[in-house]
Each structure stands twice: as structure tokens, then as C-alpha cells.
């Protein structure tokens, strides 16, 4: 289901920034790679962190005006869309490795 979340995120990024579909998906992939995230195993909190901390810089580099506002608008739209979709988050390796240490 996480690949569905990637599609939702790319769609919302496209509509919030005016980037075309290919550019929006490419920008999202670059930001996810920068964040060390796999597009096929995403969660909404992970996307929020990416859109808050990395996406504004990526959008600025692509000439998007007011990149921070565009990022905020995109992540808000993603969260709304995700809440309307049944997205079962898989257990991430991070969660498992956190448990292993008893923390």
C-alpha cells in the first residue's frame, strides 16, 4: 500500500507546485533518496518530515515560487488524502531494530 502513498504524494506535489507529473515524481524520488527512504515503504509521518525538511530546498532548486508554502500545502493535502484511504503501514526495519535494543 505504500506505493499508493507515493502516488498520492506525487499527485499532491504536482497540484501544489505547478510541476508537471514527471518532474513532481522525479523531485519526490530525489527527496526520498536524500532522506534514506524507500518509495515502496512510506508512511505519512515520514513524508511530513521530508516535506518539512528537504522538499522546500528541492522545490527552490526547480524554480518553484514560495517553496515552503507549496511544501506545506502538499503535505496537508497528502495527509487528508491518506486519511481517506486505508493505508496499512508495514512494520519498518527501524521499528524492529528499535525493539531489539529494548528501547
Amino acid at each position, binding site marked *: 500500500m505504500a506505493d499508493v502513498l507515493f502516488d498520492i504524494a506525487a499527485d499532491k506535489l504536482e497540484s501544489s507546485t505547478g510541476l508537471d507529473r514527471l518532474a513532481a515524481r522525479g523531485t519526490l524520488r530525489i527527496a526520498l533518496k536524500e532522506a534514506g*527512504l524507500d518509495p515502496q515503504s512510506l508512511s505519512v509521518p515520514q513524508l511530513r518530515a521530508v516535506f518539512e525538511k528537504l522538499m522546500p530546498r528541492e522545490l527552490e532548486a526547480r524554480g518553484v515560487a514560495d517553496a*515552503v508554502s507549496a511544501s506545506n500545502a502538499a503535505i496537508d493535502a497528502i495527509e487528508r488524502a491518506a486519511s481517506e484511504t486505508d493505508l496499512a503501514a508495514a512494520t519498518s526495519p527501524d521499528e524492529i531494530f528499535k*525493539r531489539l535494543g*529494548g528501547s
Partner: protein
Amino acid sequence: MEENAYLTSIAAGAFYVIVGARLLRLGRRTRERPEQWLGIYFGLSGAFYLGYHLPSLLGFGAWSRGAAWVVEWTYIVGVFPYLFFIRSVFRPDARWSAALVGICTVFLLLGTGVAMAQGEVIYALDNPWYLTQWVGYTVPCVWMCVEALLATRSARKRVRIGLCAPIVANRYLLFALFGGFQILACIADLSLANELGSDRAISLVSDALLGGSEIASVAVLWLAFFPPRFYGDWIARRAVALPTPMDGQRDG
């Protein structure tokens, strides 16, 4: 055999049993498979190490043939949950990972099964069934090392944006090191098999490689499962968090 290494193997075995028990207790509480599989792996590995060296330690000669096979199979059976752990954590949906689990399983069962039919595991490099078994238990160590290294690299990026705790990213690295030290132990097995198969004396190099890799394995597992406070603090201090662009704009 390996006179110096056997003391470190006994210490490692005892430690693995402790780690296994801790993980099984954790698994009973969380009802999650990964910790249960890893707990079984460490428990059986520890039992194997202790069982293998118990006759030397207690000075009662050697196990009976039946008991020796129980000890041998204890280790082999323990590798299966290790494979399940690696797959379920890192590649749960990949077909190739299921195939790799299957191939390792076949190698382990074939190598050990044929050795059992022949009456004993003949530790020699010209014995294809020993090498078959060796591949079966070495590949999971390589797999763990590679997956944990890849996970370390991506986790360090997530640490920068607050998506991964520094101690968790470090735990991936420790598991990669554990996999690496186990690979060294497997190489030491080959070296010992070469020396045993050719009636040569066990060399200091093989002995040191086996003992050293076991000591190093215990050290990294201790840091992974029982991290002392100073270590956790040190890892946290080394982590560099990325500032939030939004925060910067609000501040400005």
C-alpha cells in the same frame, strides 16, 4: 582442536544463550516474529557452541555419536530462523529473498543430511558435502552483513531529518559488523578444515581468526543489545540533525 579458540567459543556460546533468552522474552511480550526468530537463532547457536565444547570443558572425552549429531543439528536448525529474520526485516516482499532462503535451506539439509548418512561430517576442503553445508551457513552471514550495511547508510540519512533514532542507525552498523565477524569465523572454519583434512597442526592463524572473530562478535552484540549509557550518549552526540527550513523562515 583449536585450543585457544575453544575458550572464546564457550564464552560466546554463553553470551548467545543470554541474548537468545532476552529476545525470546521480548518476543513473548511483543508477539512479533522477528525477535522470536532471532531469539531462537541465538539460543540454538549458543547451545551448539556450549554443546560442542562441553566434553573438552568437563573432560569426559567425547559425545556419543547420537549426542554429537544432536549438537550438529542444533546449529543447522538455528540457521533457519536467522534466514527468516533477515528476510522478514529487510526483504519481506522480494521473491529473490524467498528463493535465497530456500537455497540456503537446501544446502544446509543436503550437506548435513549426506554427512549423517556417511556417519560423520568430514571437515576437509575436498569433501563437497562439507562445502555444501559451509555455503548454507555462510551465505546468511554475508546477507546480514550486506543488508545491515545498506540499512546503516539509509538510516544515517533518516537520522538527519529526525526519522530514525541515532542508536537505531548504529544498531544496523553493529549487526553489519556482527555479520562481518561471522564471515571471518566461517573463513576460519575453512582454514581449520584445510588443516584437519591434510593432517597438519592447527595453525595459530586459524586459531586466532576463530577466537578473535568470536570475541569481536560478542563485543558488537553487547553494544547492540545491552548498550551502556555512555555508549548511547556518545552515539547521540555524534548525530547531526538537519535544521528545518520552515523553522528557519519562522525565526527569520
